[in-house]
């Protein structure tokens, strides 16, 4: 059957309004739950860099959130290691809400750098680990993660990497605990305190790795290089902050 143009225009307009209204309702209604999911995801990734993953996997959502509130204290610093407290609009700056991707697109000097401090379970004044976010490029798309440094700011306590589109079975292995655990106990500074970072070497099953090297992933050399760059870049961005922590010049660390 052939309808008039007016009918067709009227029908599509009505459809657009109904569909649009429905979707905006859904988007509004689900926004709080979505925000909570994203928050939970960020927080469990941060915890995963210092905690045993199998233990973390047994936690419920609420346990993860309360664990996070109890053990993690966050702050944001700039490239000079000074604490930033206000966001652009003048409101309080929340470290968990700093978007690493958006900051990555700015010049390193203008970026904000969140720090998540993992407090000792018995003595909240003592910091067990400093957790730093990482961001970089893999072979196909972005890679990101967290690295946790022990209180000496030299020894790696743990890492958590994730990726968007690395090759399954090859580069995608950076997301597995098997690869991430290789970093535990490695040192980022040389004897005289200069940053050398930790490098993933080419090939797998290498013998005689130094404390600045981890075994590579066979077939994923470029992803490995991406991880190396990401780690070295971000560790260097936090250099001033580390110096301030070491010299004790930050009142409440």
């Amino acid at each position, binding site marked *: *059957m*052939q*309808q008039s143009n007016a*009918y*067709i225009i009227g*029908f*599509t307009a009505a*459809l*657009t309004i109904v*569909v649009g209204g*429905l*979707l905006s309702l*859904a*988007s509004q209604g*689900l926004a709080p*739950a*979505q925000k909570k*999911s*994203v928050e*939970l*995801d960020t927080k469990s990734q941060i915890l995963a860099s210092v905690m045993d993953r199998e233990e973390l996997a047994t936690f419920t959502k609420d346990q993860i959130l309360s664990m996070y509130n109890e053990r993690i204290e966050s702050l944001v610093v700039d490239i000079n290691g000074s604490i930033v407290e206000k966001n652009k609009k003048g409101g309080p700056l929340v470290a968990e809400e700093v978007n690493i991707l958006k900051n990555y697109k700015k010049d390193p000097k203008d970026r904000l750098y969140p720090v998540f401090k993992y407090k000792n379970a018995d003595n909240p004044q003592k910091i067990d680990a400093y957790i730093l976010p990482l961001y970089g490029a893999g072979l196909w798309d972005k890679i990101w993660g967290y690295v946790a440094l022990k209180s000496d700011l030299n020894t790696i306590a743990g890492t958590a990497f994730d990726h968007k589109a690395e090759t*399954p*079975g090859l580069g995608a292995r950076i997301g597995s605990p098997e690869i991430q655990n290789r970093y535990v106990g490695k040192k980022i500074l040389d004897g005289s305190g200069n940053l050398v970072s930790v490098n993933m070497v080419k090939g797998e099953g290498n013998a005689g790795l130094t404390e600045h090297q981890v075994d590579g992933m066979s077939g994923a050399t470029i992803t490995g290089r991406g991880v190396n760059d990401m780690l070295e870049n971000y560790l260097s961005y936090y250099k001033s902050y580390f110096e301030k922590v070491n010299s004790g010049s930050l009142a409440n660390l």
Partner: protein
Amino acid sequence: MSTETLEKSEVTAKLPTEELFSKRRKRLISDPLNEDNPITIQVLGICSALAVTVKMEPTLIMSIAVVFVIVFSNLIISVMRNVIPSRVRIIVQLAVVATLVTLVSEVLKAYSYEMYKVLGAFVGLIITNCIVMGRLEAFAMGNKPYDSILDGLGSGFGYAWIILAVAFFRELLGSGSVFDFKIFEAVGIMNFPTNGLMVDSIGAFVILGIIIWIQRTKTGYIEH
């Protein structure tokens, strides 16, 4: 899109009191499960069958999402079939499908963020899944709502069981597990050699090919 337009549905003149599950209506559900399967016979929706079937869990979520979208878009289009202007019907169908898909994706993001991260892009691509649009154009535009729901269920489950079967073998052989449960370690085989090919899309082609082979040998279906 050529095969499914051939099997244009005939609108049969129905008796006023047709049984709730008459023989014809049972066939609406059972045909797409085997003899007229959307993936293996009509060869539609292959892309997602390859992409999401690495593991069982995301595949199950994807199946549920597709069944939901097919059933409800079939229902909505069937209810509106007499008022949809025929010249813009494809756009109207698309708008309905896109709305449902967006809803699924938003709900996943809110309540199963892990799955949203794995499936994100593919859930969005349900819009372009030819099975959905194919059923709307070939069936829902010309049939009553109840029949359209049955047709949607049939096609949805036809799609679901195939991708679940593919995912079962891919996860079993590629990761040595089922629903992330390490099955070989549980029965005492500690170093089961997992096959990297199965983790890749190529594995899905191989499994899908074998399933189609077995099925067509049994049903005797031949491509025209």
